[in-house]
């Protein structure tokens, strides 16, 4: 992480970043290794350089570049090495030899880069000997018995109201009470002075988020200049859990784009977060994208709106990797301010595996651990460069965020968690194979 996060993005820097990550993709032939030979990465980098130079010189048609770079790195990562430089005559053995394809499939079964992004990495158990185990038991008692609950019998028996203050659920409950006591009158009674109302509501939401953070004993370090409220800007961050939003909201009242959730979370979304100007979407609706895109555009134009926060990954990832960013936030024509978030694993694994646990369970897990420690970096606002298409811009910003937070990049779309990959990827492989067969057929 000793690379300067800044404006210069020479392609070599991109390639250098790649070499920092563990190679996660199979090539057509052969053994999957933990650390790839360095030349593979440089090849990838140079291929990208070549593409970009061609594009810059107008050598490639821009629309074909768009479709080509729909998944900018896939072809490079799944590079075929079966295409030899000098095509030889086609024999029966070549035709029947499907071993590269089979090896790739088997490699994917054994280990694949996409599933790794969503693996919960629980820390090594440290309580395994006779000295540490009683200490660990004591810790459990403190975390679950003292810090977490706020049952009245406990209060009465201790007859110490102060202890309630240090109980997390107590803190949270108190926070909610104060919040609603202030929010509801402000929201419903102060009708005329919208500006004041908004300001107070914003402050209250910030306060509520601080209460949340306090309830997990959150230790958050913010680096970089605080976000300012200006039009024509959008904030993007990597996504690990819904608490990312709360952590960022504590500092500045953002308007965020969120998936609509059921239950009490949905209730809060409807009542409170409306006031900060949040935008909802539904992953499963296909027409939703255009509607949301329009809403986003309107929001960034508005002068008085809260700064917009988008999580371009579209799904929660386990804070070791970043998946591909969706280009929606990057084609608005305004400044993109990257925010990098990194949680400290030692205290708690903050990854919310939405398939395995509900948000309530996740919150309870956070509240029964010692602390939530994380770093937040506000990075320099980026603008789209002339000749750069939104997908390249998204990749550049993802690069910045990954470097800052020490995450590895993966060329898969986060939505593959919910949907199957597009047939275009299979077709690309078929095309490569078909071309090689045809080329060799012509050799006599």
């Amino acid at each position, binding site marked *: 992480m000793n690379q300067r996060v800044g404006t210069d993005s020479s392609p070599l820097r991109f390639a250098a970043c790649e070499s920092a990550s563990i190679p996660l993709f199979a090539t057509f032939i052969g053994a999957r290794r933990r650390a790839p030979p360095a030349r593979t990465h440089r090849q990838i980098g140079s291929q990208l350089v070549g593409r970009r130079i061609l594009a810059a010189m107008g050598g490639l048609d821009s629309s074909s570049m768009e479709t080509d770079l729909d998944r900018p790195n896939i072809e490079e990562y799944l590079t075929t090495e079966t295409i030899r430089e000098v095509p030889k005559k086609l024999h029966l053995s070549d035709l029947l030899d499907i071993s590269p394809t*089979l090896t790739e499939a*088997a490699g994917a*079964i054994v280990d694949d880069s996409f599933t790794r992004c969503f693996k919960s990495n629980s820390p090594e158990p440290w309580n395994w000997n006779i000295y540490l185990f009683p200490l660990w038991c004591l810790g459990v008692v403190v975390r679950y018995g003292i810090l977490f609950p706020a049952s009245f019998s406990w209060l009465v028996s201790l007859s110490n109201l102060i202890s309630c203050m240090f109980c997390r659920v107590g803190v949270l409950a108190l926070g909610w009470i104060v919040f609603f006591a202030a929010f509801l009158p402000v929201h419903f009674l102060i009708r005329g002075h919208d500006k004041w109302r908004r300001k107070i509501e914003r402050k209250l939401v910030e306060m509520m988020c601080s209460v949340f953070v306090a309830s997990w004993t959150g230790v958050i370090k913010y680096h970089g200049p605080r976000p300012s409220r200006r039009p024509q800007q959008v904030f993007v961050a990597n996504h690990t859990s819904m608490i990312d939003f709360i952590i960022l909201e504590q500092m500045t009242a953002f308007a965020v784009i969120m998936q609509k959730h059921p239950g009490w979370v949905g209730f809060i979304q409807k009542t409170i977060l409306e006031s900060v100007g949040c935008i909802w979407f539904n992953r499963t609706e296909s027409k939703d994208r255009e509607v949301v895109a329009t809403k986003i555009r309107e929001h960034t134009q508005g002068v008085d709106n809260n700064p917009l926060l988008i999580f371009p990954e579209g799904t929660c990832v386990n804070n070791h990797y970043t998946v591909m960013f969706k280009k929606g936030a990057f084609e608005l024509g305004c400044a993109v301010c990257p925010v990098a978030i990194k949680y400290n694993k030692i205290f708690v694994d903050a990854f919310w595996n939405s398939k395995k646990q509900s948000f309530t369970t996740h919150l309870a897990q956070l509240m029964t651990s010692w602390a939530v420690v994380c770093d937040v970096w506000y990075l320099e606002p980026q603008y789209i460069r002339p000749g750069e298409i939104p997908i390249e811009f998204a990749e550049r910003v993802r690069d910045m965020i990954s470097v800052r937070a020490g995450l590895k990049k993966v060329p898969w779309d986060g939505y593959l968690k919910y949907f199957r990959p597009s047939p275009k990827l299979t077709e690309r492989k078929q095309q490569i194979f*078909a071309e090689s067969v045809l080329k060799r057929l012509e050799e006599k």
Partner: protein
Amino acid sequence: MGNTSSMLTQYDIEEVQEHCNHAFSQQEIVSLYHRFCQLDRNSSGFITGDEFLSVPEFAVNPLSQRLLRMLDGLNFKEFVAFLSAFSPRISLQQKIECDHYVFIFPIFFFFILPLFAVEHHILFWVVLFKVYDFNSNGKVTFDDILSVLRDLTGSFISEQQRQEVITRVLEEAGYRRDSSLVLSDFMRILGSSQLKMEVEVPID
């Protein structure tokens, strides 16, 4: 080991190792077990086709459907046995235990086998053959080869060109269009090529 418990005992590991003819080390088997549990989302003890397809790298493979036929509903032992075809460890054991494999292959293998330079685990050849032999009758015909080539090339070669290619290479190798290939033919044809079918199991 019908249901996936979260712990593997030493006996389990040794049993699985026996079953796959020691193609994997004990550490690799533990690693594969974690992977199996990760893929088997609903902890049913076997991985369904759908769960395999949730791995995007597998789903974009042109031969995924053919492999799924062999992979669907495998329990852990069978899963490791399948993957042993891709083990980099060269199996010097020529003894084939019939009851371990769900595939059919002729018994005269015991005699044909030593004649060829078998550098790969026997299961490797069986998997390769099974991908072609869709209706599992032990014979690969012109149509079988055509259908695999169709999967591999998609719409980027015309049907006529495909048929032309296959007819030409078959004739060149001394077969007719209506001849059918058996496993030993495959081994003979491909035995001299540099086949790379090795996958390394990452050990956490």
